């Protein structure tokens, strides 16, 4: 099957004044981290992938389950999963992993170029999911 034109893929969004070309470019340049690997995370991944969010940081379990489907849905989107898994493990206690929203936040911080957050266990911010 021929590769659909990008214009076709994002036609509905491009035609919305609120999104348009500028908004779509920002979406493609953006990154979203999804916490968890349940049905809500799965649904979020599908919608964000279809919208053309450039990079999706997802739980490795979710990636294993959905990578093929997401790539087929939108090959523009880059999945970041395994590479960030190590960042989510506590540097002081390998048994402990960040989870939920904290993991998503750590992944986004790492992706932003600020580097891994080494002291995440000491941060006052608490995961809410």
């Amino acid at each position: 099957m021929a590769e659909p034109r990008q214009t076709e893929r994002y036609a509905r969004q491009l035609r919305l004044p609120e999104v348009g070309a500028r908004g779509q470019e920002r979406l493609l340049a953006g990154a979203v981290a999804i916490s968890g690997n349940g049905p809500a995370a799965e649904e979020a991944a599908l919608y964000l992938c279809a919208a053309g969010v450039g990079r999706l940081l997802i739980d490795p379990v979710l990636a294993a389950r959905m990578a093929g489907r997401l790539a087929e849905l939108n090959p523009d989107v880059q999945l970041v999963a395994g590479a960030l898994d190590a960042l989510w493990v506590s540097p002081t206690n390998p048994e402990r992993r960040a989870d939920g929203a904290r993991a998503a936040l750590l992944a986004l911080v790492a992706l932003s170029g600020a580097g891994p957050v080494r002291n995440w266990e000491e941060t006052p911010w608490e995961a809410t999911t």
Partner: protein
Amino acid sequence: MNADETAQGKRTHEILAVPGVAAALARHAGAWFPKECCALLLDGAAGPELVLAENLADKYHALDPETFPRTAERAYVLDPRLIARAEGDGKTLVAIAHSHCRVGAYFSDEDVRAALSPFDDGPLYPGVDYVVLDAQEGEVRGYKVFGWSVARRAFVEV
């Protein structure tokens, strides 16, 4: 004119030649003057249809002047739901019409920018023509139809 350009504008000219359609479009442009009007030409099972739309440019400009620097005097913003609704009803979008006030009927750089995909892969609405009306003080002097030329990779009068 290339064959693809002739094919491109054919249905739009046919619809505009239907008695009453061009006159209704001209009245719409006159009513909106000195602001630009906008409208859709559709084709459906029941025949061609003219949808006179509201120009939302002023509303968007008021909300976000950075993204929408032009007011309705120099730009038009169509409600995309009109197109989505028409397509949902099984109709085909044939052309998007808008008026130019006091400057003549031509396809401006801004018109080209708005009609092209940001991905450099052609028009945002493939196969859809653009009708530009020449609105002047007290009269609408006519219109021109523009369509995408595959051969020239540009919008040309058709």
